[in-house]
Structure formats: C-alpha cells, structure tokens
C-alpha cells in the first residue's frame, strides 16, 4: 500500500519546484534584453506611451517589489493578459482552454508507446540475438532516428491526402459543434476539453468517431518515438535482471528459462523503466510541440511556438510554469506506481 504520508511528502515538493521555476522565469525575463512595454505598444510608439504602459504593468517599481508581486500572482496562476497571441485575454484562460488538448495528445501517444514498447522490449530480451531481437533493435533505433516532423507529414500524405482514410488536421470534424457543458442526472457539469472524452460524455457517437480519426495519426507519431525508447530501455533492463544471481538459481532449479524470465524478472525489470517514463514525459511534451504544429492542433505546444515568435512574455511564463507543474505531477504519479511495484522504496 502507498502510505498517505508518502503522497503528501511528494505533493509538498510541488511548492519548491514551482517557486524555483517562477524565480527562474522572473530572473531570465528581467535579464533578457528588450522592453515588454514596447512589445505591447509596438516599436514605433512614443516614449510617453511606453512609459505609461510601464507604469501600468508596474515595471517602474523596484525589482524586489516586482518579484514579490510576481510570486503572489504566480501562486494563483495569474500571469496577467496575453500581449499578442490572444490579445487581452488572461493567460490563465488561454491555458485552461489549451492544456487539455495537449494532455489528451500526450496521453494517447504515451499509452500507445507503453502498450507496444514494453512487450517488444521483453520479447527482444527473451530472444536475445535472434532475428526478432535484431529486428526489434534496428526498428527501435530507426524509431528514434526518424524525426516526428518527417514521419508526421508522410503519414498525412499517405493516409489523409492520398488515400483519404483519415483527416489531415484539426481535432474533430468541422460539422460537429460541442457545447460547453454536459448533463448528468439533471446537473450541468463542465466538459473536460478532451474531445474523445467529451464526445462520449455527450453521447455523440459520430463526433467521437471523428475525434478518434483526427487523433489517430498524431498519437501514432508520438507513440512510435515513445515505443522505440521504451523498448530499448525494457530490453537492457530485462537483460540486467536476468543476469543477476537469483535468476541463475531459479533456472538451475530446472524451470524453463523463458517462464522464469517472465515470472521473476518482469517485475524487477519494470521498475527502472517506469521511472524513465516519468522523466521521458518532458521529451514527450517537446514531441507534442512538433506534432501539434504539423497536425494543426491548437494545444499548448502550438501556442508556445507562437508566443515565443511574438515575444508574448506572459503567455511564455504561463506555459513554462504549466509544463513544470505537469512534469512534476506526472513524476508524482510515476513515483506512486513505482512504490506499488517496489515496496522497499517507501522506506
């Protein structure tokens, strides 16, 4: 069992993580050249206009006061309004709207990667140096080598443009319009923002099919990369476990080698692989940025790219902190899974 204290301890760590990221973001934005006020009013604005915006934003206060104010706002995830990309809209609203999109994409990609990567890695280890092993290893290497921004376009060209089996971009067919809320037993509840979940909640089967069709290729593109990485990890982790003494003893007792491997080795071999899934989540987010760009999905990744391009600082700040929060939460989840598999870790 996972103790409550273990979870509380991990959750408490969120505070310094976000505190640290917020301080870093603050410091970097104040060290970077350029005046945010100029971004808002434009390069050709008069000095008076720039000064006015600076006063409005509090940029003329001493920096330590700005820092304390920034931290106070960051606690409630208030980064002010977007300068350019979603002009005038509070960053928090933009994030709430975009975040589920990216989470949905990353989640399906990761699930595909785990479903295929781990069995392939086990297979490769069990049949070490066989044809299967060689094919899996080369396949995994190829999966890591093929960039998302090549496999993505090629899959679109093949399955969407040429064959017409799947849509080219977006999240759901244009004919579908999803309301903001759904009703359960007479109460109105907000939707999640993830189309595959929302369409099911609304009971709109056709819209669900459309959402799945839209999500399929992007999830596969992310999944291939994740699968390649996980199968490599799983293989080497499995081989390492198999070499340990108790495995030799178990084999010497006369059980079939393959059954022994699966029975005793799997649980131990999974432990390091699961921890890597957490760390690898960051790479997955990077992949999501590219995938969203290719498939025209309006998630947090495309928004980050646009915000960087337009030096929309509040939006960049909000996104960076959101990524940090996500990363920490995912690793918290991984930690809990980990302690299920390896009860020693709690002490």
């Amino acid at each position, binding site marked *: 069992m996972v103790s409550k204290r273990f979870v509380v301890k991990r959750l408490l760590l969120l505070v310094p993580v976000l505190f640290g990221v917020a301080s870093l973001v603050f410091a970097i934005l104040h060290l*970077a050249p350029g005046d945010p006020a100029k971004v808002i009013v434009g390069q050709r604005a008069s000095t008076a206009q720039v000064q006015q915006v600076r006063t409005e934003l509090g940029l003329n206060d001493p920096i330590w006061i700005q820092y304390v104010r920034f931290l106070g706002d960051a606690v409630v995830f208030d980064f002010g309004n977007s300068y350019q990309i979603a002009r005038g809209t509070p960053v928090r609203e933009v994030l709430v709207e975009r975040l589920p999109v990216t989470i949905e994409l990353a989640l399906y990609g990761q699930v595909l990667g785990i479903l295929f990567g781990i069995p392939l890695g086990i297979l490769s280890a069990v049949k070490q*140096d066989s044809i299967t092993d060689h094919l899996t290893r080369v396949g995994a290497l190829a999966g890591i080598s093929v*960039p*998302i921004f090549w496999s993505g*376009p090629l899959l*679109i060209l093949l399955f969407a443009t*040429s064959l017409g089996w799947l849509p080219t971009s977006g999240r759901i067919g244009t004919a579908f319009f999803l309301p903001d809320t759904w009703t359960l037993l007479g109460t109105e509840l907000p939707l999640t923002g993830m189309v595959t979940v929302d369409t099911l909640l609304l009971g709109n089967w056709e819209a669900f099919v459309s959402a799945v069709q839209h999500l399929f290729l992007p999830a596969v593109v992310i999944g291939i990369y994740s699968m390649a990485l996980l199968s490599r990890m799983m293989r080497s982790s499995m081989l390492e476990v198999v070499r340990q003494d108790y495995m030799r003893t178990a084999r010497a007792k006369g059980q079939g080698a393959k059954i022994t491997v699966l029975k005793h080795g799997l649980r131990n071999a999974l432990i390091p692989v699961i921890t890597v899934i957490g760390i690898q989540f960051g790479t997955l987010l990077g992949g999501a*940025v590219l995938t969203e760009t290719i498939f025209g999905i309006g998630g947090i990744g495309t928004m*980050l790219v646009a915000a*960087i391009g337009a030096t929309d600082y509040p939006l960049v700040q909000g996104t960076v902190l959101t990524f940090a929060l996500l990363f920490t939460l995912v690793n918290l989840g991984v930690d809990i899974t980990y302690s299920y598999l390896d009860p020693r870790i709690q002490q």
Partner: protein
Amino acid sequence: MAADTRTRTAASSRGLFDRLRASPFLSNLLSNRLAVAGLGIIFAMVVVALYARLFVAGPFGAPLSDLTSSQLGNAQNKAPPGWLAGQGLLTDIFGTDAQARDIYERTLYGAWLALKWGTVTVGLSTVLGVGLGTLAAYYGDVTDNVIMRTMDVLLAFPSLLLALALVAIFGASLGNAVIALVLVYTPRFARVVRGAALKVLEDEYVDATVALGASDPRVLVKHVLPNSLAPITVQSTLNFGLAIIDLAALSFLGFGAAPGTPSWGIMLSEGVNNGLLTGQWWLSFFPGLFLAVTVLGFNLLGDGMRDALDPRMRETVD
C-alpha cells in the same frame, strides 16, 4: 599491482594508433555489422556533403543563390520527379519545390549544412565538457559539486524544450539555436570526462607527474584525453545524431536557420506548408529521408560503440 602499473606505463608509452588497434573496443566494434553499416552511412553522407559543397554550390558549382532564392521564371514549380512524369530518370530526380528550386541539389547541400552545424555543436559541447569535467575532477570538493550538480540539472531538462526556452529569451537565429544545444549537450560530456579523469587521478603516474611540478589541469587533460577517448567518441557519435535532429526541429519550428536556407529542417517546414494538403509528397520526402538516414547512421554507430565499450551487454540469456 606492480605488474598492473608496468602494463599501464607500457601502454601509455605506445602510440595512440597501436593502442587503438590492440583494444578490444575496435575489434568488438568492427564485428558488429550494424555499427559498420552506420559507419558506412556516415561516410557516404560526408562524401555527399563534400560533393554538394564543392560541385553543387560553391567554388566549382553553381552559386549558392541558385539554391536559396526563388527560381520561378526559369522552371516549373512543384514539378514531380522526372522519372514519375516519364521524362527520364535524371531530369529533376527529386522534383522541384514551390519556388521551382531543384530539391535534389538543395537536399544534397542540406547534408553539408547538417554535418557542418552538427560538427560545430558537438565540437563545442565536447570542448566545454572536457574542460568542465576535468576541472571538476581536478579540484574536487566545492568546485566539483557546483559544476557537476549544475550539469545534472541541465541534463534533466528535455533538450528541445530547453533549447526553445533559450531561443525565446535570446531571439531566434541559427547561432542562438547552436548555443542553446551546446548548453544542452555539454553536461553529457562533462560527466563522462569527469569519470575518466577521476580514474586517471587515482593512477600513480599522474601523482608522479604532479610531484615533478607539473601541477595544473593541463597535465590532466594530457592524460585524461587518451584515456577517455572511447567514451567521448561514443557520446559525440550519439549526440551528433541528436544535434542534427534538434537543429532541424528548431529550424522546422522557425527558430533556427533562416527561411529559404537549403537546410533539411527548413525544407521540411516548406514541404508541410506547400505540399501537404495538395499531395506534393516529394517536397517533404527527400530532405526527410536524408535526415532520417543520417541520424540513423550516427545512432547505429553510437549504439555499436556503446556495446563494444560495455561487453556485459553482449552476454546471452542461455
């Protein structure tokens, strides 16, 4: 112990080449068919890159502007490869892009750019990593802690996201993209070099040199470099593939090479913008194929090198 020291001294007095030939590393590596295939791919790409630099654009070929600026007016845009249109194998073998530029020439020149910027990125990371790793090992204690812990943190960031953040701060340009990636890759080298340097420091012959008065990190670099050559090479090879992919990704997103540059990342982004919905697959296919094959070459070789360094991995289950 005494015998051990003698062998080591003998080994260090022999030439680098002899030692390489005698090492199990190289024979392990050469018996790995995949690694040899990777080596072949890299060699082929180097040839392509040099050919492109010399004969496609450059001193003996057309001026670079033929590859970068629009060729509309001279030729048809988005023309499919000649062998598809029944015009013979060698006319427009990869087709032309939205500005009627020859994709074959641009893709070939892309190999030169990828290898050039990959070399700069990996080279700078190696130099910085060797320096920092050696300093950390040599001074130990606080210096070691500060350097290596900083490296650890940098290592924990996902490379593309960290590079994006840096580019967000310092502005989008190829130079900044390279600097960002150097920052991202340096820790891997520092780590490897520090490990090797610590091993060398434990050896007596460095103690002896230091006792003779040569007490600065230069001595260490002189002894560390030969001893950490193999792990550094493995890291360089693996990171070379990564550097090429990450640089292309940054260019693809618009934060690297300038628009119009015949680099694979830019060509892929132009392919997505101009050919994705209308079905001109050759705009994306050929530059991406070269990119993927090159990266695969580095990954195959790097992977084989790692196995050759760590023979444990070759042990079989049964």
